[in-house]
């Protein structure tokens, strides 16, 4: 009896994380500015890390924690890369406008 409770608790935690991910995706869809979208992508990544960890405990395969660590790493680097890329693009647009004026 008592051994089925952890299963249940992890299942509930997965469900909660899933609801939170859906809410954040709604913000990603609605977000008026680019930075709202980057922010919600970032917190979606954090929730995915937690999701993978809980899933590993639910399946009794703690090896999943390596994948969670990898995902956290890629999430951080991709956020920085997206921000830098969009900074460049904005400047590129201004350059294109200048060339159009010529």
């Amino acid at each position: 009896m008592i051994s089925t409770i952890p299963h249940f608790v992890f299942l509930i935690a997965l469900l909660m994380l899933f609801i939170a991910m859906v809410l954040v995706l709604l913000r990603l869809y609605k977000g008026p500015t680019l930075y709202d979208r980057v922010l919600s992508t970032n917190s979606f990544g954090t929730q995915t890390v937690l999701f993978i960890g809980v899933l590993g405990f639910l399946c009794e395969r703690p090896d999943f924690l390596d994948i969670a660590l990898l995902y956290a790493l890629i999430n951080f680097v991709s956020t920085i890369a997206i921000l830098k890329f969009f900074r460049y693009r904005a400047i590129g647009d201004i350059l294109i406008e200048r060339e159009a004026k010529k």
Partner: protein
Amino acid sequence: MNIFLDLLQVIAWICIFSGGILVIIGALGSLRFPDFWSRLHAASVTDSGGVILLLLGMGIHSGFNLITFKLLLIGVFLFITGPTSSHAVANAAWVSGIKPLRNKHKKPGIDK
């Protein structure tokens, strides 16, 4: 001894449950808040409180072994990178000229 271990398990379940609730509250806040700058704070609830409670719960549940160390490593990693990436988002938004709302009854939007 056995009762003590059972008590630890119950604490672990409470931690995981409340961590899940904190993550939902963070996501709800990022959906409800009126403008970008306040949404940043809602996302940081997930980054700090939710991460601590969920990882603590999983760590207590697994007992003390190498898995606990890996969870600690994930926690430290998220604690270093989470604030850094939200600082990067805030800094990029500030440089590109998104200003906070002065009046809370104003419609949300971008002040250019």
